[in-house]
């Protein structure tokens, strides 16, 4: 088991290394470098910068060095917590994204929790009461949840909130809490606002995992070991929870990293629509401005989250499924 975990750690680190290269390539991708963009912006404002000044800027930023050296410099900085400089905000990237990262993390993990609690409980209900009215409703909602893009759902909620309550359901804080430091009251205020983005972000995932849960559980309910346990006199509810539900949860836990990846994917766009103080709107703005160090750092952050999620899901699976522990290691 220990060697399995070590192997997982190594593969996670390799993935992270590859991701850092991809992120760096993305940073380099737009034609011209930041200095060109800076110059053209200044010239639009009527300020003319000489070529010498531009070259001096390049040397100062190290943009004249070969690519691999720039990568090494960048990744070396990243490892020491220096994510580079945001030219748009004139501040280090780590400062710009600081607080927003914790909000994104809260958002992603609340969504994950919401998704799994809802998907598992409705999935159990749907499978046990197959073809009941509740099951049919869950199935229909599931299909719609899968087909509706998150941002569209967010738009509809925004519109309905505006029309029925005359208020915006966007944002994560009441106005009086936006610019004050963290406190218990502010935290509680956030919890109150959290359900809208969590609902929007979790809808598709819940629909998907619900379908998986229902299908697997229906399969498991007919398995021999369930009948055998029933023949041992185990009461129905305990039987359901201990045997088939435990089995049916495995594939759902196995896709945890992948689910997190979906949530992280949807977060920027939903964050923008609901104007959340998360990393999403910042990321989109950075992409639109081609503020690439900021964008690159954010991609690195998103991917790292997913890699960690996948790692956690692997470990969880080893804990709940003994067959995983014995795989290969024995």
């Amino acid at each position, binding site marked *: 088991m220990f060697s399995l975990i070590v192997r997982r750690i190594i593969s996670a680190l390799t*993935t992270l290394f*590859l*991701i850092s290269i*991809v992120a760096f390539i*993305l940073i380099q*991708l*737009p*034609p011209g470098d930041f200095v060109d963009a800076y110059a053209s912006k200044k010239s639009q404002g009527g300020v003319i910068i000489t070529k010498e000044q531009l070259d001096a800027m390049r040397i100062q930023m190290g943009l004249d060095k070969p690519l691999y050296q720039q990568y090494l410099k960048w990744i070396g900085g990243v490892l020491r917590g220096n994510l580079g400089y945001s030219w748009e905000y004139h501040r280090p990237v780590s400062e710009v994204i600081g607080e927003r990262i914790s909000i994104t993390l809260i958002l992603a993990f609340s969504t994950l929790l919401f998704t799994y609690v809802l998907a598992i409980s409705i999935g159990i209900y749907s499978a046990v009461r197959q073809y009941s009215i509740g099951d049919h409703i869950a199935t229909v909602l599931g*299909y*719609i949840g*899968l*087909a*509706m*893009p998150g*941002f*569209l759902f967010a*738009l*509809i909620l*925004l*519109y309905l909130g*505006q*029309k029925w309550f005359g208020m*915006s359901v*966007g944002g994560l804080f009441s106005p009086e809490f936006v610019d004050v430091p963290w406190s218990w009251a502010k935290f509680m205020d956030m919890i109150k606002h959290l359900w809208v983005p969590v609902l929007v972000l979790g809808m598709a995932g819940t629909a998907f995992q619900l379908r998986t849960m229902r299908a697997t559980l229906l399969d498991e309910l007919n398995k021999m070991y369930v009948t055998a346990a029933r023949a041992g006199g185990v009461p129905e509810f305990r039987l359901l929870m201990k045997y088939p539900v435990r089995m049916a949860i495995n594939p759902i836990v196995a896709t945890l*990293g*992948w689910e997190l*990846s*979906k949530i*992280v*994917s*949807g977060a*920027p*766009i939903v964050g*923008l*629509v609901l104007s959340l103080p998360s990393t999403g709107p910042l*990321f*989109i703005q950075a*992409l*639109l401005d*081609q503020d690439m160090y900021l*964008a690159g750092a*954010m*991609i690195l952050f*998103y*991917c790292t989250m*997913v*890699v960690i999620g*996948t790692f956690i899901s692997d470990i969880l699976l080893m804990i709940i499924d003994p067959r995983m522990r014995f795989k290969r290691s024995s």
Partner: protein
Amino acid sequence: MTDDRHININGKKIRRVDIATHWQLMWWQFRKNKMAMISAGILGIFLIISLFAEFIAPYSPGTRNPGYLAAPPMRVHFFDDRGKFHLRPFIYGSVQKRDPVTLRLNYVDDTSKRIPVRVLTRGESYKLWGLFKSDVHLFGVDEGMINLFGTDKLGRDLFTRIMYATRISISVGAIGVIFAFIIGIIMGGIAGYFGGIADELIMRLMEFIRSIPTLPLWMALAAALPRDWPPLRVYLVIIVILSGIGWTTLGRRVRSKLFSLREEDFVLSARLAGCSNARIILRHMLPSFMSYIIVDLTVSFPYIILAETSLSFLGLGLREPVVSWGVLLYAAQNVPALAQMPWLLITGLFVVIAILAFNFMGDGLRDAADPLAK
């Protein structure tokens, strides 16, 4: 036993199931799934819209109705305000009124003015597929404009724009799926047929791509495109980006199927007969799992359509003057715009219906792909 289950050959009664081809069996199974059949019908309509957008839409996507800006959908009536029935449907003319409280412009039906809706009428001229010049439209009005789904801020007809957007979005999906299919076959083919190091590398690549959150990657790639590129190039490059990441599902399927087929006798006999590798893969192995590929293609459609819609919605994908569903929804991005023009969300309905239809059809095809399983 009813007789459509049997067939007479040389006077012998033979069960049709026993001599049906794989595709026939698949079709019989698929036909039984009502939702899948309805979805196939809906997708057929989407296809017709995409092919004949110029004919179905009464105007061109840029045409403005200057007297009807940011205005709600017009209602088509059969009964006038006195309850009198008219065989030819009509719309009312409209007058602008300023709301005394909000000071916002509203449009009110002018019941004194009935404008009949004409079918197959002449209007703006267009060139269908760039070839056939015509000015016949499915429907239209003689006076003013008809805006079935309302208009946007500039007074452009939303119905027209959705028809054109359907063409773009569906074609992005179709071309994207074809690209993904080609990449998937090549990569999966190399991995599954040759195995060894090639397989190892390609598998790692697929795993890597699958472990990255796709949308941020798509966004970053799309953001890197120069702003001054012509629309057609942006369109093609966006498709390449989407399929360049979306091919992994197909690649895996092709690889695993090739792996299991590699040891089959018919492949060995083809190899002994001197067929080239490409021929063995394309002519002998591929047809035997084509039905699974079709299922995967159907299921990948919505992913590509959704991705394009999301990118364009963010302003990172397609941009005006090209209209796609995402480009249309871009106008509905903020609360004030939504509050003023909720009908802009009709575009969203098209997105949801298209994706639902693809999902249902995918389910139906998946069940049908194994017609003898049950």
